[in-house]
């Protein structure tokens, strides 16, 4: 019984205070009243009694059904956990000013596409490709900005991605962005986690912060993908600088080395144009084919129809009874004084 109350409810509970009205048929039948000289004159009739009882019950059903229907009964929705193919994807997107330049390092003109616009177009396709992916979006420039926490609402994620080709901000500060993107993964175990890092440059990670990041990566163990949008002529991830090989001289190379040293699954994609970005995203999609538990929300089920159905059944019987009513007084007057107006005691 308590389980029934827990799983069922009504939309407007106060209407249920009208429920005692369903008892009105016990005191008022609403049927035509016939004048009889003595009630004892009528013979005991079990059939009549049963019909009377059935009509009372019909009245109760009609009123009760209508009141319950007005209150809007429903069976509560449920959350069901299922297993699908997908991953928790935390996207870390560079919003530094250089992302608004083309892959050739110029201001976009005509049909040219900026790096941000290309990533926006391609990422929007990536989100929603698979139904059960969860996404979080973090943007960073000088400071990291949590754009959207981990969610399965792909429309909202696409709205966040739609904002990434607006004018960017100052500089590229990777370390704090990485920390915030890592913090977006929930606590659940056994889920494929993907950190998708999209940037067109790198920066030196402070050695003190490096240790903290290493610990975070070791704890969360995401699959790390770095989509490096390389501007033409700028150094590649794999280029050794001519002079001293320090993080300051070649931040891209040293960020790559740092990622390699983390001991987590890691791949870097160097994209020098929109097509290369599309290929990289397709590869990432193909690589991430792990099961993920997801919650399916079974919506609440409206039971109002049932209540009105019961009421309609009761009303049908009541209406038929009203149609089939005999009028003893009328018949008597019809037999007696034919011209006299029939004395009706309509109730």
């Amino acid at each position, binding site marked *: 019984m308590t389980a029934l109350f827990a799983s069922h409810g009504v939309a407007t509970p106060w209407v249920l205070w009208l429920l005692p009205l369903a008892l009105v048929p016990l005191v008022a039948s609403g049927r035509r009243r016939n004048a009889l000289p003595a009630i004892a004159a009528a013979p005991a009739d079990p059939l009549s009694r049963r019909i009377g009882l059935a009509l009372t019950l019909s009245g109760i059903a009609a009123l009760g059904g209508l009141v319950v229907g007005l209150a809007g009964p429903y069976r509560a929705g449920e959350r069901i956990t299922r297993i699908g193919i997908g991953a928790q994807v935390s996207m870390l997107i560079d919003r530094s000013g250089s992302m608004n330049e083309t892959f050739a390092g110029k201001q976009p003109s005509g049909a040219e596409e900026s790096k941000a616009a290309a990533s926006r177009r391609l990422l929007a396709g990536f989100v929603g490709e698979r139904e059960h992916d969860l996404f979080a979006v973090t943007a960073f420039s000088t400071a990291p900005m*949590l754009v959207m926490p981990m*969610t399965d609402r792909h429309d909202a994620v696409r709205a966040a991605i739609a904002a990434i080709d607006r004018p960017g901000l100052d500089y590229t500060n990777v370390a704090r962005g990485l920390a915030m993107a890592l913090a977006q993964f929930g606590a659940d175990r056994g889920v494929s986690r993907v950190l998708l890092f999209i940037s067109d440059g790198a920066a030196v990670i402070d050695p003190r912060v490096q240790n903290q990041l290493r610990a975070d990566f070791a704890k969360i163990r995401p699959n790390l993908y770095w989509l490096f949008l390389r501007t033409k002529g700028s150094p590649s991830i794999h280029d050794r600088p001519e002079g001293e090989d320090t993080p300051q001289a070649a931040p891209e190379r040293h960020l790559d080395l740092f990622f390699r040293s983390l001991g987590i699954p890691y791949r870097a994609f160097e994209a020098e144009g929109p097509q290369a970005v599309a290929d990289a995203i397709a590869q990432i999609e193909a690589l991430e084919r792990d099961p993920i538990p997801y919650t399916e929300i079974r919506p609440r089920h409206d039971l109002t129809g049932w209540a009105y159905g019961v009421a309609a059944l009761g009303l049908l019987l009541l209406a038929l009874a009203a149609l089939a009513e005999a009028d003893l007084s009328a018949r008597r007057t019809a037999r007696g004084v034919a011209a006299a107006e029939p004395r009706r005691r309509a109730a």
Partner: protein
Amino acid sequence: MSAAPSPALPLARNLRGPRFLALALALALTLAALVAPALPVTRTGAEILMVVDITGSMNVRDYTQDGRPASRLDTAKAALRRLVADLPCGSRVALALFTERRPFLLFAPIEVCADFAPLDGALAALDWRMAWEGDSRIAAGLHRAVAMAADLGTDLVFVTDGQETPPLPGGEPPPFDGRPGAVRGLVVGAGGYALSPIPRYDELGREKGFYGEADVTQENRFGPPPADAESREGFNPRNAPFGSVAARGTEHLSSVREPYLKRLAAEAGLAYAHLDGPGGLDAPVLGAVAPRALRGSLDPRPILGALALALVLATLCAGLPRSLIPSARPR
């Protein structure tokens, strides 16, 4: 009633009888309620770009929540979260941060009911640490926020305390060069009316006291000097056009700059409201933004059901008073 060997029931008369008609009508209404589809109606919602100032002065704790001091930013977040929860379904909200001199769009408009969880989560996660620069050029930010709202096709809600950092040269904001009133919206002034100290943080984000008078720019000394510069101590037209004495002032303290914000709002054709606490933002926002027609639906069943209920009750009770009073009973 039944066993009478009567030839025929008075069907024709019963058909015309008020009780049968009432019951049949109630039955028809109930059956209609069973099959009636939801009626399409037009409701009003809102499309809002929310821009939240996350500069240092928004950390001033001059509100109270549950008896504890609360910062302007926390209060603004609570108010916006409540506003989002109260907006009718179908309304859409975009969110942007403001610091330095321009708004930074976090996401394009999303629907407030279906996407409530990420929207609420993003509002809850707003933090002063997201600021990419320490400046707070409110007028420039507001003007660009108006342009951003026009670009997105939404109305604007701009939450700020109005403290320009650095102070404006000569106290005059840059002119608004858009068309006033082209974008409707509301400037929300956050903060108390009394001056309060501004918390100060170290590079790791830990609080380390408050700003002192010498820690902040008290006077903007870029551009031409003010008209009264000649009367200042140590004035020298070439070497010390602003005088030789360090500027003193209250820029290290903060209160809501209401007259300034009202002026900025009026110039841009926006309304102004003060943020009194976590509640109470709904009415001014809904009053200031343009109502947008949303497709909604009206469930006709309660109306049909209520009519049917009234008819049945009337039919049953029509004879009740007489039947309850013995003397009035039919002979």
